[in-house]
């Protein structure tokens, strides 16, 4: 009876997780989605605590562990700047994977006497996944936080080495399936899987990390589902399946928006310094550059401005200044909108989150599809720390690594203004001919600084007039 109630609580929690994801499909219901997810989680935890067989000592340990976990989790979640989101998610992820791996291992040691063949196979799979997601997520967080080198580290035959490591782990699991009592095989499986997690991420550039995180998320979901199969826990299966699908779809969407394949992301060592890429030295060539007051003058005089934010805005944390600047322009009667490329920044929806943080209403953020046909009617496009997402080479240069990626057609506007620190390339490591276009004006400097100066110019000039 008690167990039945627990199972019913799990059923309710599973529905709660489903609703939680469903409500994420529109901004007005998204917070309700979080609450559903949280409520479902709390219900699941409480129901679990009612299981038969938990001892007094167990409860004490659980209380201590929950407290310690919360004490670490709260600062991890609260004290995080918006720009550090990707690495925080990766870090949090590695913790979850660690738990999944440990549970699988502990379950093996406790039940090895009566574990079936299929069960052992699923369990082995689960342990491999848990371990590799653990180290993989740590590596991803390290790369994003720039503790580890962002550039992909490659060597000849790397993929073969990686697959040899994974293959060895798989062979050991097969040996375990044949005879689940071979306890000695577990430690090498763990070590190999942890190593594979590291090796998997080493050759991937820091900027590809968001895709990798989505994929690791998917693996974590699948490992939770596998754990659910082994423990015969349906809630784990449902939550794991939802999660596994979610990560997979997000990773696919990101790849598609960059016009790259999974394989290329995982094994392509993208973002390496390209030998032939010219202009990555920072020397300023045949470009027109403008001073702050010239730029402000042009912006003030225009009727419609479209701001194209990119990774540079995130790095410079310029979103609040951008908002102030847009307010100032609007006070001058200029129509200001934002064009959001699907892979601008380093995470899907990165720009949306940052601009939302700065209180830009989300109906001012236009998707690529919405805005692309309107550029010919725009007076000034302000490219703010974006690079690849406005690179016309994607349209016509078949040899470019970003060829085929849909871009924002900013070169159709009357005037393009680009704010960045130098002539250095962006994520893809390639030259951008847009900067050499006669109608392009470069405004060099840190995004936050430049936008602040522009705001002063715009409002200052207005004061001068009103004197």
């Amino acid at each position, binding site marked *: 009876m008690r167990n039945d109630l627990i199972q019913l609580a799990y059923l309710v929690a599973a529905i709660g997780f*489903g609703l939680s*994801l*469903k409500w*994420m*499909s529109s*901004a007005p219901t*998204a917070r309700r989605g979080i609450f559903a*997810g949280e409520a479902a*989680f709390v219900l699941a935890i409480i129901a*679990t*605590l009612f299981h038969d067989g*938990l*001892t007094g*000592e167990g409860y004490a*340990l*659980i209380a*201590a*562990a929950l407290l*310690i*976990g*919360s004490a*670490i*989790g*709260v600062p991890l*979640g609260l004290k995080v700047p918006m720009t550090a989101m990707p690495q925080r*998610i990766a*870090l*949090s992820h590695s*913790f*979850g*994977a*660690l738990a*999944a791996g*440990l*549970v699988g291992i502990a*379950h093996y040691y*406790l039940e090895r006497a009566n574990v079936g063949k299929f*069960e052992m196979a699923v369990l082995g799979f689960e342990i491999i996944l848990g371990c590799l997601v653990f180290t993989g997520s740590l590596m991803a967080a390290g790369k994003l936080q720039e503790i580890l080198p962002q550039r992909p580290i490659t060597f000849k035959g790397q993929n073969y080495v990686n697959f040899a490591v994974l293959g060895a782990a798989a062979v050991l699991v097969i040996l375990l399936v044949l005879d689940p009592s071979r306890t000695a095989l577990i430690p090498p499986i763990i070590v190999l899987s942890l190593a594979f997690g590291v090796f998997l991420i080493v050759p991937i550039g820091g900027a590809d990390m968001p895709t990798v995180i989505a994929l690791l*998320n998917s693996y974590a979901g699948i490992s*939770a589902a596998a*754990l659910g*199969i082994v423990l*015969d826990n349906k809630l*784990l*299966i449902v939550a*794991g*399946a*939802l*999660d596994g699908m*979610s*990560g997979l779809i*997000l990773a696919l*969407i990101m790849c598609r928006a960059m016009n790259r394949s999974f394989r290329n992301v995982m094994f392509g060592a993208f973002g390496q310094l390209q030998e032939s890429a010219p202009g990555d030295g920072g020397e300023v060539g045949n470009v027109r550059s403008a001073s702050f007051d010239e730029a402000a003058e042009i912006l003030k005089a225009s009727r419609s401005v479209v701001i194209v934010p990119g990774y540079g805005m995130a790095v410079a944390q310029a979103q609040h200044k951008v908002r102030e600047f847009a307010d100032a322009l609007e006070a001058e009667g200029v129509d200001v909108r934002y064009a*959001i490329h699907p892979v601008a920044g380093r*995470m*899907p929806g990165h720009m949306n989150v940052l601009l939302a943080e700065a*209180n830009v*209403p*989300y*109906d001012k953020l236009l998707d690529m599809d919405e805005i692309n046909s309107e550029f010919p009617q725009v007076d000034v496009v302000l490219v703010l720390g974006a690079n690849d997402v406005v690179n016309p080479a994607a349209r016509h240069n078949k040899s470019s690594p970003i060829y085929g990626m849909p871009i924002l057609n900013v070169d159709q506007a009357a005037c393009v203004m680009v704010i960045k620190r130098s002539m250095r390339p962006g994520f893809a490591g390639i030259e951008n001919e847009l900067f050499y276009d006669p109608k392009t004006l470069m405004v060099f400097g840190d995004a936050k600084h430049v936008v602040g100066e522009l705001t002063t110019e715009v409002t200052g000039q207005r004061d001068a007039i009103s004197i």
Partner: protein
Amino acid sequence: MLTNEVIITSLFIFAIAGFLGLEVIRRVPKLLHTPLMALTNALSAISLVGSLLILGEAHTTYSKIMGFVAVVAATVNVVGGFLITDKMLKMFKKREPVKAKVEVGQ
């Protein structure tokens, strides 16, 4: 030891839930992809349920140690994950309800 029937039931649930996930996630607009990643990050800590059982049953010293670390780690993930998501989404709510711009993701 699991019977074949239990395993197949599990596969049933996995398949239908995966299908449901596919349908639901496909509708999430790009606008919300980063919060979605954060939310699913929190949900992936569901192995907390398994960790609690291992720790609570307190069978052996080993299982206690592993369970303890697992519960701590999973709690970090779930607490951190939900707080991050919440923080992100709070920002989306500042304005009066504008027209719900739900585009079908891909």
